[in-house]
């Protein structure tokens, strides 16, 4: 091994490793946005939180102007779903907001990263179960009303059956779709993190 250390010591003389750095390059790096996975995820969640809050406020302000009563009720249900969605997005954001300590040892850094992303995925799946089916169903019913204002939407039991079945079907489909999207976005990355964690714990 001493021989290998001696060879290693010759690296700095000539070799494929770059040499030096300009101060301007360092200053540019210090003022740049993070390109890390969690930083990108945090920006993405912040955008979703912002949009959800804006939509929530818009919905709340429009309730008094919606008629008939059943539409107001639907709108209120939608508002409640958006409020809950906003809270859950905020919860996700606060998980990601606290930066990971990159000066801790690699094993704990990796574990922090891995479990934080798993928690975010968990909240994303809860949000999809609450927000998306209700949004889509409500949007569908409002669209029906707008297309033919003469029709009294939700006037009979048949309409309610359609509504409930729609929510159940859309909830199931949203859950599958969200899990599929999460697999595409996160699976290989989490797999790599997990492999490294297992190697270090071995």
């Amino acid at each position: 091994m001493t021989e290998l250390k001696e060879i290693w010591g010759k690296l700095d003389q000539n070799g494929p490793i770059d040499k030096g750095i300009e101060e301007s390059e360092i200053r540019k790096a210090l003022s740049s946005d993070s390109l890390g996975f969690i930083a990108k995820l945090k920006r993405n969640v912040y955008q979703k939180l912002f949009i959800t809050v804006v939509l929530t406020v818009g919905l709340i302000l429009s309730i008094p102007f919606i008629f008939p009563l059943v539409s107001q009720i639907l709108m209120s249900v939608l508002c409640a779903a958006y409020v809950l969605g906003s809270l859950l997005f905020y919860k996700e954001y606060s998980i990601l907001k606290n930066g990971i300590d990159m000066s801790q040892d690699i094993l704990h850094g990796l574990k922090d990263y891995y479990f934080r992303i798993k928690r975010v995925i968990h909240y994303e799946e809860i949000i999809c179960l609450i927000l998306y089916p209700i949004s889509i169903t409500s949007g569908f019913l409002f669209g029906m009303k707008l297309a033919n204002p003469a029709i009294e939407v939700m006037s009979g039991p048949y309409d309610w059956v359609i509504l409930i079945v729609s929510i159940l079907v859309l909830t199931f489909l949203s859950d599958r779709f969200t899990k599929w999207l999460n697999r595409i976005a996160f699976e290989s990355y989490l797999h790599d993190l997990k492999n490294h964690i297992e190697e270090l714990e071995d």
Partner: protein
Amino acid sequence: MTEKEFISAIKKHIGIIHKILYLYVDDPEDKHDLKQEIQLQAWKSIGKFRGDSQFSTWLYRVALNTVFTYKRKQKITTDPLEHHDSYAENKTEQTDQAELLLRAIKGLHDVDKTIITLHLEDYSNQEIANITGLKANNIGVKIHRIKESLKKKLNPQAS
């Protein structure tokens, strides 16, 4: 540490970042992005540098954490020694030997790469354990195994 002191420390230890980039990353875009990200993460974590370890040790920890948690566009999948034409001819040249060693290390798994690089940089087993989170009594065994693997890569005729 002020920004000026930090910049000065980075300039002094930039070799650590460059070595890590060479060993862990092939894609030029990844290299550029990671180089920037390591410096940024080091600056963000500078408040946690208490001076009880050397700046180089602390920088290794930050740099390796950044590399391990970065979503690389391209992983190193081929053995970097496979296409080295002058592998047999220039074995006696010290700098070529160093390059061969570097390439052999580059072909290892990420965790093995980390352990052997820190060992070659003269970190003790306990220091390596502090940086990686591995148990100190496992380090010696792993170094021995990695050394055998490197010897086989560098001297395939002998093995």
